[in-house]
């Protein structure tokens, strides 16, 4: 869509607030549905890079209270296929400049991520992925058990453990960033550029004329738009259902937990796909442990205790010192999983409607990359080159981007 001249800059937010909370207007150039990281980043890049600031982000709950507030904040780009390397590495490059771009501290810490291999099959898959990563210019290394032990002394790398550590992939540029600070950073900058952030406004359906989407129905009235971009993560299917559009998504609970504040014992991030546990230690000292998804479909933002039990059992096997820790709090989000563990991004059969979904258990790391690519897609009415392989049509053509190896549990 054509870039319009920038509107008058809005009055700044009230003192002490990061953004205004305006009433939604009856029409916008672009509506973004969902104020998770993806929606906020998309709005920010629409305004910052395409001069499209007549944008509202509509949020049914509170700003970034969905998966964005619930993830374990792991960032990495060491995915297997070229298409994935393209978009995840694009995101990582943007992460590396994001504190400057947003003008604030995001606690972005490139402390490295290890993915453990526990079987000869794991080893082969991991080494293959390291080689594929290198061909794509991604910093990837294969570490033997001794090197792993040096980086993670608390890990039991003994030969007779339940889950022997046969080595690990290592991406030194990977790491974590504070998800709340990231959301608030994008929100504040988008607001400053004129984007309306509207909380407590649930989209319930679409305004249509024939095959075109002309806006949305919301709990606060109808809002017209030139284009609508769905960034509703786990609730995407609920929205597209109102259009009779079927998506290859299943929404699952995904759980995580934290311990109380502990002395520093871990200064990198360690993941294990095989036993579904991954861990980092936050700057304040709490251990953050993520689990695998609960197998069933669920929108309840809660999962089953068995998943947490299994996760803790695996964690204590791998890190015997964790037997001294306590689980302080567990929680869950609702993640939308696609059959090939890759996202769905791009135009839809409905003119004016764009989707971004299927990020499942691992979309936080992509936040700036998705925002950048989706904003470009919406602004130009065609998929950004990095989004092209992730179109909905791949499920018909069969050109899947199978990232189960890189993504299985993965975050």
């Amino acid at each position, binding site marked *: 869509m054509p870039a319009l001249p920038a509107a008058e800059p809005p009055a700044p937010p009230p003192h002490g607030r990061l953004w205004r909370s305006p009433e939604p207007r009856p029409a916008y150039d672009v509506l973004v549905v969902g104020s998770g990281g993806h929606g906020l980043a998309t709005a920010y890049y629409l305004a910052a890079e395409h001069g499209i600031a007549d944008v509202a982000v509509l949020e049914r709950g509170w700003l970034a209270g969905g998966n964005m507030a619930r993830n374990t904040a792991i960032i990495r780009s060491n995915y297997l296929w070229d298409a994935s390397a393209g978009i995840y590495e694009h995101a990582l490059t943007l992460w590396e400049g994001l504190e400057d771009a947003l003008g604030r501290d995001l606690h972005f810490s490139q402390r490295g991520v290890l993915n453990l291999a526990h079987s000869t099959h794991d080893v082969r898959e991991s080494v293959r992925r390291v080689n594929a990563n290198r061909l794509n210019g991604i910093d990837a290394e294969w570490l033997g058990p001794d090197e792993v032990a040096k980086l993670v002394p608390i890990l039991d790398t003994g030969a007779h453990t339940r889950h022997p550590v046969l080595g690990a992939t290592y991406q030194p540029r990977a790491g974590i960033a504070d998800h709340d600070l990231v959301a608030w950073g994008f929100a504040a900058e988008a607001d400053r550029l004129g984007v309306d952030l509207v909380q407590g406004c649930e989209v319930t359906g679409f305004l249509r004329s024939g095959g075109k989407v002309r806006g949305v129905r919301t709990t606060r009235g109808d809002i017209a738009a030139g284009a609508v971009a769905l960034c509703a993560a786990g*609730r995407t*299917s*609920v929205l597209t*259902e109102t259009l009779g559009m*079927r*998506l*290859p*998504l*299943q*929404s699952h609970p995904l759980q995580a937990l934290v311990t109380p504040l502990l002395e520093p014992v871990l200064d990198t991030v360690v993941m294990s796909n095989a036993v579904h546990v991954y861990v980092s230690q936050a700057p304040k000292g709490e251990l953050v442990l993520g689990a695998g998804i609960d*197998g*069933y*479909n*669920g*929108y*309840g933002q*809660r999962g*089953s*205790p*068995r998943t947490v039990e299994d996760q803790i059992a695996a964690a204590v096997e791998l890190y015997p010192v964790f037997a001294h820790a306590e689980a302080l709090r567990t929680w869950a989000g609702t993640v*939308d999983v696609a*059959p090939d563990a890759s996202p769905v991004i791009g135009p839809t059969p409905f003119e004016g409607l764009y989707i971004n979904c299927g990020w499942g258990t691992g979309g936080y790391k992509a936040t700036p990359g998705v925002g950048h690519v989706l904003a470009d897609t919406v602004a130009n009415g065609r998929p950004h080159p990095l989004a092209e392989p992730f179109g909905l049509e791949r*499920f*018909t*053509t*069969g050109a899947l981007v199978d990232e189960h190896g890189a993504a299985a549990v993965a975050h």
Partner: protein
Amino acid sequence: MLLIPCPWCGPRDEREFRYGGQAHIAYPADPSALGDEAWADYLFMRDNPAGRHAERWFHGSGCRAWCDVERDTVDYTVTGSCTTGAHPAGGPDTGPCTSPYCVRRAVPSTGGTR
């Protein structure tokens, strides 16, 4: 934690089961006649409702049989369970459903969340 009533074994802990996704998806009657769209639909497209869901569970640590469970995906309440395929979606029943927890019967279910 889910308490799932197996039609053969009675109410059992979720841990004894494996989830099998949406129920009542029939194998294409004439696969060689299927176009790409229809294959995509059969292989990849699934209902994903926030609410009542007909789904398959496999009682791996019990009778090792599949059953069709009806469950709410928002509050996770299990309404009942039936023998596999007894009540295909949108079609007539294929035969008697012998499940004491049949979703078509007005008996209170012992299944549920706990």
